[in-house]
């Protein structure tokens, strides 16, 4: 029996009918058609499906769609502001923070969650902040550097604005 779910996805309100067993990643990818978040293990172990719920990173394969009723969900597709990339995206491009790119949408969202909580993280804090996200290509080194770089860029941007 499907139920009506109301939530916000990347700033846009949605009202959709979903089965109780449908997971959030299934809703996002299969029903709504945003394929940025990926399924690597479907068991909450790889982080490829990481999205933000109210600004915090979660494995969307381990959340039922109905659990986000009334909440705000953000995927990698919501990261850029129109054609203006988010500093995290700019840093990943400049610093080589991706290779095959399959973990990247999850990494970016895990990073955004981390920066939401801690805008100026140390390398140590970044390393631990990514412990839920697997990457088999990069050895993490450049992902960690990219996030550190992004934090500096955001600090600078924030400074310019104020």
């Amino acid at each position, binding site marked *: 029996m499907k139920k009506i779910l109301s939530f916000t996805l990347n700033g846009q309100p949605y009202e959709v009918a979903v089965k109780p067993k449908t997971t959030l990643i299934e809703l996002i990818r299969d029903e709504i058609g945003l394929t940025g978040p990926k399924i690597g293990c479907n068991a909450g172990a790889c982080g490829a499906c990481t999205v933000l719920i109210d600004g915090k990173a979660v494995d969307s394969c381990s959340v039922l769609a109905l659990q986000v009723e009334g909440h705000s969900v953000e995927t990698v597709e919501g990261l850029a502001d129109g054609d203006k990339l988010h500093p995290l*995206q700019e840093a990943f491009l400049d610093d*080589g923070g991706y290779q095959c790119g*399959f973990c990247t949408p999850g990494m970016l969202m895990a990073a955004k969650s981390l920066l939401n909580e801690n805008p100026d993280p140390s390398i140590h804090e970044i390393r631990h902040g990514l412990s839920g996200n697997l990457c*088999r290509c*990069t050895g993490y080194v450049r*992902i960690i550097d990219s996030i550190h770089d992004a934090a500096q860029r955001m600090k600078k941007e924030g400074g310019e604005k104020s």
Partner: protein
Amino acid sequence: MSEFSVIGKPVRRIDGLEKVTGAAQYTTDIKLPGMLIGKMLRSPHPHAKILNIDTSAAEKLLGVKAVITGPRDTLGVKYSNWRRYPHLMDETALAMDRVRYIGEPIAAVAAVDADVAEEALSLIEVEYEILPAVFDPLEAMKDGAPQIHEGPTVRNNVSEARHFEFGNVDEAFKKCDYVREDTFYLHPVIHAFIEPYNSVARYEGDGKLTIWTSTQTPYYIQTLLAMALGLKEGNIRVIKPHVGGGFGGKMELFSDQVVAAILSMKTGKPVKVELTREECFEGGRRRHPMYYTLKTGYMKDGTILAKEAKLYTDGGAYNAMGPTSLYLSGFFQMFPYAIPNYRYDGFHVYTNKTPATAMRGFGGPQAEFTCDSQIDMIAEHLGMDPAEIRLKNRMKPGHVIPGLAKVESCGIKECIERAMESTGWKEKKGKLPKGRGIGMGCYGFMSGGVFNWINSPYAYSGAMVRVNVDGTVDVYIGSAEIGQGSDTVAAQIVAEKLGVPMSDINVVRGDTRTCPPDLGAWGSRQTLMVGNALIMACDQILDKLYKTAAALMGPNVVYDYAAKDGRVFIKERPERGLDFVEVVKAAIRADEGNQLIGRGYYTPHDKGMVSPAYSFGAQVAEVEVDEETGKVTLLQVTTAHDCGQVINELGVEGQLEGAFVMGQGYTLSENLVTDQGKILNPSFVDYKLMRAPDVPENFTSLMVETYEPEGPFGAKEAGEGLTNPNAGCIANAIYDAIGVRITDMPITPEKILKALDEKKKKEAKG
């Protein structure tokens, strides 16, 4: 090398924007109208005869559109990359009458959704006759062991034996001051790419089929799928969207591809088959476990005179790429050392386990662990510095391995020296406080294999370049970008050759219908091979442009021309030139409007039996070992790498870091644990991959640039070979730290504690 405009310069990857915005499309993202979901039923037994398969209940389930089995619905063709050596082709898409490992596909269904497909699988009844099984290669080789395959070329489960020998090993051993023999065991690990195996097939009718699939080798899939389905190669279109990692695990035709195709042919609908993570473990591939014995003869001064290597690989139930891993392990055992007398015997042994295949390093990680461990043992015996003994025995440029290889450029000396200098090796080796240690490992690796198992009449790589009237350039390549950055390298090579900006290059790739045949991504072949094909294609275009420019400018003597920064000009008079676009337009007009196209290919000549060129490197790790817990922490990791001319530095560094961390996992934590053929840890929770907090905080990459005459702009391999020296390097650092040597991989805290315990007992007695 400052004359380059794009080569070696910092450039953003051409696939970057789509990858950071989530727009990049992978096979798993493809959803076609009316698409069905396919799933496979897998064997729960390691070895059994199939007496009967009853699919009637599954077929009746509402929403099921097709159910297929091997004997009823497939041609039963045995296929693999070994088309040139048919006796090695031993695998079918679905079991015909017997299963040989837990996870082997038996039947498949296509249904309206995944839930229905799974329910249908549970309704298929298979009647088995359980057969005795064998799981260890040494057991499998014994008389009376269960025979996993019959056939004239298989005896006692040995499907392939490799032997090479040069010099006079026995005589040399007699001359040596010392001869030592050591045995090692290497464990199984998996590729663990994050995108699971998956495919979408759409049968178009009239014998034509399109398949989107996550593969490293679109051309292999095209040819082998034709064979498995009985269709014409040219009527099969393989599309490779972005690929979420491969590492050697996606370079063969797999059941998901064949099954998706057959289900689509049966139903007339597109069918998607996607493996779960657990299926990727059980029904996928792994790196070969190996039992290795090394006998090495050496002189008091550290000169190695002779080596004999013997190994038995646990190949699993089918050959896969095992025979090549076997061959290359024996080959890389020599690198990067000049061994004058060498004998190698390797045996590929069937067991009732998941087939093992190529995995980053292709036999090299096993070889270098044993080689690097033993060299340190020899150095200790002689009281020598392990770095000095490596320098003493190193290969030199121009080194020839009789009947196998010609090594042109070779920067191993510079690599070792720079790694020593950067790490303060001399001040640290043997002198660090207890619990801390430093170790070295070295390697040489191939830049593409001179191997044509697939028996293709085509060249190793092909390329086509078309210059449009506005100066933009379309580049058609069949090589496979799987994350390593090869499409960007291809674009850089063309931009440099034609003197146009990167933003004017459009790379057309990943589609066998439009791209030239290419053997794909394996053996670190793409930069060198497709790079050379692109250079040939660009040279044809430049020839036309230079002739046109000469006609337009009319210089009074013959000059040489060059193309750079959007101009075509006289080499010795750079101020005399024309706009690139102007020359392109004139060249097209002069040729009756024919498109300006260059075509190239690459086939190596006179380069031996293995590879056109070899990269080299030295790896140093500084570790801290907690003697209470056995935990190993990597404090500083330094790589000095000779990859010839660097084309994309950010790409090379990223590849080196990734290779190291994969090697770190191989050494310290990853292990595919099986019991009676059943994988006990088939998940990312239980199979321990390195995570961000585990990797070294300090990672230094040093580029040792040499010029490789066979490589495009002098470039060669980067990023695969560094998987090889890590285990030996870390093992040597652990020995330096706490005085225990682990020869049985992986080096877990339990093994370290046990070895420390034994060492203490020995010391107490002594």
